[in-house]
């Protein structure tokens, strides 16, 4: 997890294009300036970052489904529930699935756990648009490579 770059997902554990599901891991850092303020003496991951981690998980799933031909942009977050504290150093496992694929949008659901304990969940809607800039697509490709995006999964739909 590189919080300074808003890159919250470390690796893709499983991607099943046919089932429209993904599982990823996100390692919360042991130390970061965020924890100095949130909160002094009681460091926990901010809910907005947990929500972003769920959104990025769903985003990678949608990128795979769309074969990187379009970019999912966050549009709506519903039913975001912070069910338990997430502390520095904990490993998040996030499962996401597609609820509905519409025309130009997709609705997803995600759940994040530490071990077996459910920490947060949300329903997240994305607008799906062509990449606005070729350089952006190159950056996403590099990110996909970095987190171990299984490109072969896209050919086994």
């Amino acid at each position, binding site marked *: 997890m590189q919080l300074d770059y808003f890159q919250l997902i470390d690796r893709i554990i499983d991607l099943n294009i046919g089932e429209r599901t993904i599982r990823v891991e996100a390692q919360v850092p042991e130390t970061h300036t965020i924890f100095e303020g949130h909160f002094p003496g009681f460091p926990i991951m901010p809910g907005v970052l947990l929500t972003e981690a769920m959104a990025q998980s769903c985003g990678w799933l949608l990128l795979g489904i769309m074969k990187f031909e379009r970019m999912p942009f966050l*549009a*709506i977050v519903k039913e975001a529930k912070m069910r338990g504290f997430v502390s520095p150093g904990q490993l998040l496992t996030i499962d996401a699935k597609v609820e*509905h*694929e*519409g*025309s*130009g*949008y997709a*609705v997803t659901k995600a759940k994040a756990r530490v071990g077996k304990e459910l920490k947060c969940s949300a329903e997240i*809607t994305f*607008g799906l648009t062509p990449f606005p800039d070729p350089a952006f697509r190159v950056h996403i490709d590099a990110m996909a490579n970095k987190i171990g995006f299984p490109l072969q999964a896209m050919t086994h739909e």
Partner: protein
Amino acid sequence: MSSTFDQIADIIAETCDIPRDTIKPESHAIDDLGIDSLDFLDIAFAIDKAFGIKMPLEKWTQEVNDGKATTEQYFVLKNLADRIDELVAAKNAGTGTGS
């Protein structure tokens, strides 16, 4: 008045917090009801789910942008209801909707 219209109006009222009695078959979703694109995403999801279809929003938008259709054809609610009825009929006939 079609039952399809009533279902759409109920969805819009609930999704956008618009009084149900102000939503008429002649209402234009954008011009009269002030529904923006983000709210329309929510409405589209609810309609897709309720009717088991996939409204071809991108195709409709492209047609409007290309001057091949007017927004009234798709966003005046009685017309939207007709489009949905067509999509449901096409689905039931197994011909697809071509989004």
